[in-house]
């Protein structure tokens, strides 16, 4: 199983919301970025699933709206 770390999550989120990695941290939330919408969310979750080999249930997808929540869920 791939290693789940903060850097990986930030890099995935950064790619899909088009914000530099340096501007995202563990406390970042979807509300902080206008491009982190439902389209970005679905792309973020799909890529996380792919990179971590962990399936995230669809009913949980919309709840993972911050870096911290994503990390906690994957732990």
């Amino acid at each position, binding site marked *: 199983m791939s290693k789940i770390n903060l850097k990986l999550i930030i890099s995935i989120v950064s790619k899909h919301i*088009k914000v530099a990695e340096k501007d995202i941290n563990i406390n970042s939330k979807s509300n902080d970025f*206008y*491009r982190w*919408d*439902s*389209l970005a969310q*679905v*792309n973020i*979750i*799909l890529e996380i699933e792919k990179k971590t080999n962990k399936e995230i*249930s*669809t*009913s*949980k*997808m*919309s709840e993972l709206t911050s870096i911290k929540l994503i990390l906690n869920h994957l732990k």
Partner: protein
Amino acid sequence: MLFHNPVFLFLFLPIVLILYYYTYKLSKFAHEYILIIAGIFFYAWWNIYLSPIIIISIIFNFYFGNLIKNNSHKNFKKKILFFSIFLNILFLAIFKYTDFIIENINYIFNTNLDLLNLPFPLAMSFFTFQTIAYLVDCYDGNIKKTRFTQYSLFIIFFPQLIAGPIVKYNHMMSQFDNPNNRSINRKNLNLGLVIILIGLFKKIILADNLAIFVENGFSVSQNLQFFASWLTSLSFTFQIYFDFSGYVDMATGIALLFNIRLPINFNSPYKATSIINFWQKWHITLGNFLTNYIYFPWVKSLKKVNFLKIMIIIFFVFLIAGIWHGPSWLFVIFGALHGFGLITNHVFRKFFDYKINKYITCFLTFNYVNLTFIFFRSDNLTISLNIIKGMLGLNGFELSNYFDDKLYIVVILLIAIVVVFCFKNTSYLIDKFNQKIKKKIN
């Protein structure tokens, strides 16, 4: 029985509150029984003969939920999940859409089938979605043990039964099961009463007055000129917001009297800066349902995901959202226009890398939403097109004597505009109130 009915406010609600707070010593679960009986009574008040429908739905779906939870075979669970969802949608479709389907068959095939004129059970659209969410959560393992009374209470809790918000099982049960919530909390009581008053103001003073003007305007749409058309469409846009959000405020306030916090459903939607943003602020719990239980599963079911496919899915999700509001092609047009708006926003975000001034985007979004609500309100397409023609000035610009006895509506509309654009919303007030309490405690 509606929330602003004096029988509800001055008789039903006080009796239920007294029983709720003074019977908890009798049994650990007395509060559940009280609220379930109150819910059934509240529902039956509207039509006693249709109330068995919600009870049958509760019994069957509780059974399906248990079947899903207590089975370890994933394939079997999946089959039960799909079957139970299918049954729920079929149940909804029979009552809500049968005549709509017959009308369309008659139109297309030139037949003369009789309409069934089935009555539509109150709140069925809401409790069907809530039930589907429950079943999916059972399948995903988010819900462990459920007692029958817990599930019944989740569906029939009367403050949110008729007009939402669409709540999730775990959100509600954690509160119902909390023993601290069974004793009177004065702060919640005060806050709840204030929110009920805000809701009553929105509903009775603003929405109901605007409704008279709207009714008048839409009934003479062919005669409406520029100013009257704009005032009519704007009045409806504000009426629907104050009607719906006022009712949800009352639901939130009433639930708070029982120490139950309902999720936020409106967050200043007319201040939205895009249609994407609008659906993050308007009927939030419906948006969450569509996202969680239709949009995400649909996207995940694709073998290969790309931008075009997602846009097509978004469009279809909004067609579903449209038809969910009622059995009419005008609701489909409403959904399609919102789907189109969302796609336009996503395309812009993907291919254009600059931000437009937020006041301009807010103005554009509000006017687009205003346009879509014309279809939402009209009885037929001709009325919608008449009003749009009027708004474009194609029917003339005269003020005429149309406004002679309706000047008060301009005042109500101005109040509505000020309330929407200059004031904070109810959820902000609740948050602020909670922060103050926390500060005092610390």
